[in-house]
């Protein structure tokens, strides 16, 4: 197997994605991600230099709505779905420092 992706790469990516992995998970995911990236190696043989990327299947133009008032989501209904709320705001643990 080629070294498409290393254990350290996977640990770094998991950190970026805010996922915590056990040592066993790290081993398993490294092998599985390498499998997928190995399969994607069939693209290496293609000469794509003359092609523009397609980001989207439709020729998109920006869509503007008319600047008129309309119904919006109910604030209390939205807040009711949150894990923690205080004074009509989403409540989270400290972003800097920790709860003492």
């Amino acid at each position, binding site marked *: 197997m080629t070294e498409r992706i290393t254990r350290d790469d996977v640990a770094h990516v998991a950190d970026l994605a805010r996922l915590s992995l056990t040592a066993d998970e790290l081993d398993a995911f490294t092998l599985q*991600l390498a499998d997928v990236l190995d399969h994607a190696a069939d693209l290496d043989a293609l000469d794509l230099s003359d092609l523009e990327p397609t980001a989207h*299947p439709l020729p998109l133009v920006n869509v503007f709505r008319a600047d008129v008032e309309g119904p919006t989501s109910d604030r209390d209904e939205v807040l009711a779905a949150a894990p923690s709320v205080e004074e009509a705001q989403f409540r989270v643990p400290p972003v800097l420092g920790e709860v003492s």
Partner: protein
Amino acid sequence: MSGRALAAAVRSGDRSARSVVDEHLAAIRSGEPEIHAFNLVLADEARAAADEVDRRVAAGEDPGVLTGVPVAIKDNMCTRGVPTTCSSRILEGWRPPYDATVVERLAAAGAVLVGKTNLDEFAMGSSTENSAFGATRNPLDTTKVPGGSSGGSAAAVAAGFVPLSLGSDTGGSIRQPAALCGVVGVKPTYGAVSRYGLVAFASSLDQIGPFARTVSDAALFLEVIGGHDPLDSTSIPGAAADLTSVLDRGVEGMRIGIIEELSGDGLEGIAGDVRARLGEAAAALEAAGATVETTSVPSTVYGLSAYYVIAPAEASSNLARYDGVRFGLRVDAPNSGDMHTATRTAGFGDEVKRRIMLGTYALSAGYYDAYYGKSQKVRTLIVNDFAMAYGTYDLLLSPTAPTTAFPIGEKTADPMTMYLNDVCTIPSNLAGHPSMSVPFGVGDDGMPVGVQVLAPAMGEPVMFRAAAVLEAAAPPGASS
């Protein structure tokens, strides 16, 4: 009974919506413990909605073309005040503050929502085994998978729990389970059905579409849910295409190409019995007056590789919103960063984690060009090859899935093996084109085989005409 026939019976007063709904709820009660098609059955709500339909019919009103028809929707479509889980722990118990556009449209047509169906977590999978709430079983053989990710919606229709259901298709998640369960499944043109209220997986590929037991019912349901929606910025302008009135026009004079690369000769893994049914389907179209020949769409072989970079990349971005702040699960921790990590680690299953990490990697500095940039260019290659093929052919044909339904547990250990299920369905998503699976006989194991009809963008009317011909010519299907 078809959805069309049920609606006609209720509209004419021959049957009450309540009796129709009660009958289907009884079927669910007896079959559901073994199949597990649903995450949630809305029995009381469905009875109340049916009574309201009956009241309106009695008052001389016409509730719509799906009057009194029980429908189920995949549990990744938002229902106001009703739990919407995506079969994920991270959304367990979440009640959306709004309805998806498709939910409003089916209610506006007189349909009655009876439940939310099981799926692979966040629609990531091909077997419905990745659900946090347990696998769905194939109603035709409960030791087999129903396919996925919309396996619950496919199984619900195949089991007779509902005549119609909705799924979502990002790389084959409607068509592949339709094939494995022996029902009709349609992925419409990208933008033909509003995605407003569909929980996003890979936004440039996701599309909602119908499951039905007949081509005619699928056409009717697609007319109901399709058409422009100002709440989806990628929605195609204009009304939904008229499909039901063109269904019987046949394929006389059409030119149809069998995609060589997806049909066996160039590709390992397409089973012999599936290839045999495809050949018989081609013969049926020829007998109906079409010209059918094998043709090459070379870049379709690269679809799988490009898809498994692009879809995870978009997913890694879309699923960043599950952070324990505004909705869903929160696992407490002393600071916000640790809370995000603890919540996501506990809330997501392995397949979702795998794809988030794959996508994060493919988008990260140093690898972006090698994986994501390259895959986006392959997407162009596939779009160009399809354009070339549709210069000659009205429609293209391939198997829907490489094999019939496989045993539960057979492919869960090796993600790449599971991904190969999508090899025939992915190219249509990458191009934004419509395609559909039509049941066409059974394999050596007696399980259903699906034939995939592919059309260019907005080609649904022609696609449905061919599907109707295939349906009429199909050998007997599987029986449970």
